[in-house]
């Protein structure tokens, strides 16, 4: 976690001097320039700057915006305002991915070699390859412009979540469907399934009770670990749908050269990612006793 903070700090402090020029405008007095430098936290040695940066992290403000540190809300406040939208989008994307991927993968594994299996494999590969920044607009075009089924850009309600969630989740869905299939195929050939069949259990019980649980577990883990990918996707999709969120805030910050905002956004996204990974690790131990003992 500390490593991530050093990384964030390190990259964002390679800010070239012309950032100050940019914010100050052409005819800034030396005093104005200095005020901006102070505001951007560019004063003092690198170590002093890093300590100050950490201080902003721990006092919960994530720093102030420049060049008017007093007037606007703190960076943390701006992030807190939009962050729930991003979390909702990422979670919805995750749900879309898992809900569609599991049945697809399982069905493909059970009918291995059939036309359905082939179709699912082709679909999954296309889903992985098709760029989501095209999928998003196409969904918007079909379901908002042409059909009018779902609300369009700038909205944040539950109905407005549907299209962005599909756009965010498709890539992961394709990956997970392939994983589910191969994991299921592997489990179906295990000895304990032959045992289960041998003792006369019906095929339904064998598949749904014995095979499924073992096959799905690794898939769920990967889904959790792919949360970072979903967050990255959310940045793109928020731009496509002009949907308020941390990704859009980040892009705005970059466009305005508002470095404290950029820094804060990057840190928050990275921190969420690390946090989710830790939670998934722990959850996996709880669900699968074999891991705990190891």
């Amino acid at each position, binding site marked *: 976690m500390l490593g*991530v903070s050093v990384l964030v700090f390190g990259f964002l402090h390679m800010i070239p001097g012309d950032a100050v020029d940019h914010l100050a405008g052409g005819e800034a007095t030396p005093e104005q320039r200095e005020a901006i430098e102070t505001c951007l936290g560019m004063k003092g040695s690198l170590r002093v700057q890093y300590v100050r940066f950490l201080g902003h992290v721990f006092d919960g403000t994530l720093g102030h915006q420049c060049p008017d540190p007093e007037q606007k809300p703190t960076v943390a406040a701006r992030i807190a305002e939009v962050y729930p939208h991003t979390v909702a989008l990422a979670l919805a994307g995750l749900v879309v991915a898992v809900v569609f991927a599991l049945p697809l993968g399982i069905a493909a594994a059970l009918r291995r070699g059939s036309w359905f299996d082939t179709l699912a494999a082709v679909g999954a590969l296309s889903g992985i390859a*098709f760029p989501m920044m095209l999928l998003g607009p196409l969904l918007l075009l079909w379901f908002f412009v042409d059909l009018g089924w779902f609300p369009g850009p700038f909205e944040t309600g539950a109905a407005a979540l549907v299209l962005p969630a599909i756009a965010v989740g498709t890539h992961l869905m394709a990956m997970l469907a392939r994983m589910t299939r191969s994991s299921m195929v592997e489990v179906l050939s295990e000895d304990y399934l032959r045992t289960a069949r041998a003792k006369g259990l019906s095929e339904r019980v064998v598949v749904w009770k014995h095979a499924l649980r073992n096959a799905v577990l690794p898939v769920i883990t990967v889904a959790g670990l792919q949360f*970072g990918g979903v*967050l*990255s996707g959310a940045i793109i999709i928020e*731009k496509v749908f002009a949907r308020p969120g941390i990704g859009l805030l980040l892009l705005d910050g970059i466009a305005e050269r508002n470095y404290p905002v950029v820094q804060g956004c*990057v840190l928050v996204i990275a921190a969420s990612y*690390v946090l989710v990974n830790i939670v998934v690790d722990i959850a996996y131990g709880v669900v699968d006793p074999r891991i705990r003992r190891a």
Partner: protein
Amino acid sequence: MSEFRPGRWSPSVRIGASMLIVFVVLGVLGPLIAPEGVGAHAVNLDRMFAPRSWSHWLGTDKSGIDTLSQLLHGARSALLLSVIVVSISATIGVSIGMVAGYFRGAVDDVIMRIVDVLLAFPGLLLNIAIVAVVAKPGLPIFVVALCANGWVGYARIARGQVLSLRERDYVAAARAIGASHASVMFRHIAPNLLAPLLVQMTLGFGNVIAVEASLSFLGLGPQVDHTWGAMLDQGTTFLWKPGFRHYALAAGLSIAWVVLGANLLGDGLRDRLDPRQRGRV
């Protein structure tokens, strides 16, 4: 691997390789066979958003530039960029990974810690952060941004392989007859890394194209003449324009073509070169 016969390559490898060959050929020839130029001189505001026609197979864009020509120039950019990024990432990653795996100890610990930190960071976010702090994004910084976390995958693979290879008898034999560390690493260990690296490079190839497209789409692209990502950006902006959907589709499908080809080839090669991994993702 004596049973290396062309006839035994899986359809996945053959289809993937063919798709990539088409891309490479178009990437090399693209700007030469493009019907028109795409630079500032090609801007022609009299024919903005021209529909598809015999003179412009895919119409023109908002500046009146021929779409097909842009696609072909974009293929060149994409090819150039992925070759540069993959070669640099692979070189750096393999060197670092080999050193870590070969010498173990403190060197290994430090390197793997760095790898862990980079892996704990969403990849695209890191790329965005690097490109964003530079006032004038250009090709060099773009390459740096993609290599900054691109090397990690190669380093992990190289390290893992070297860890097991260094315990082999032939390495001990080479050491015993007085070969230096460098000689052992490059002459005896490095050749054995080629197969897994080939797989990783193929997959990395597609990945670079996808990330480039994402960054260009976000307005953080390499700023070379024409990229598919930048075309997607323009295409989606004007997607509502009647008769202009094919512009975004053309760019998007080009990206999908390369990524699909690279994935097919990479997966197929992995199954072929490392049968233990067969069926896993």
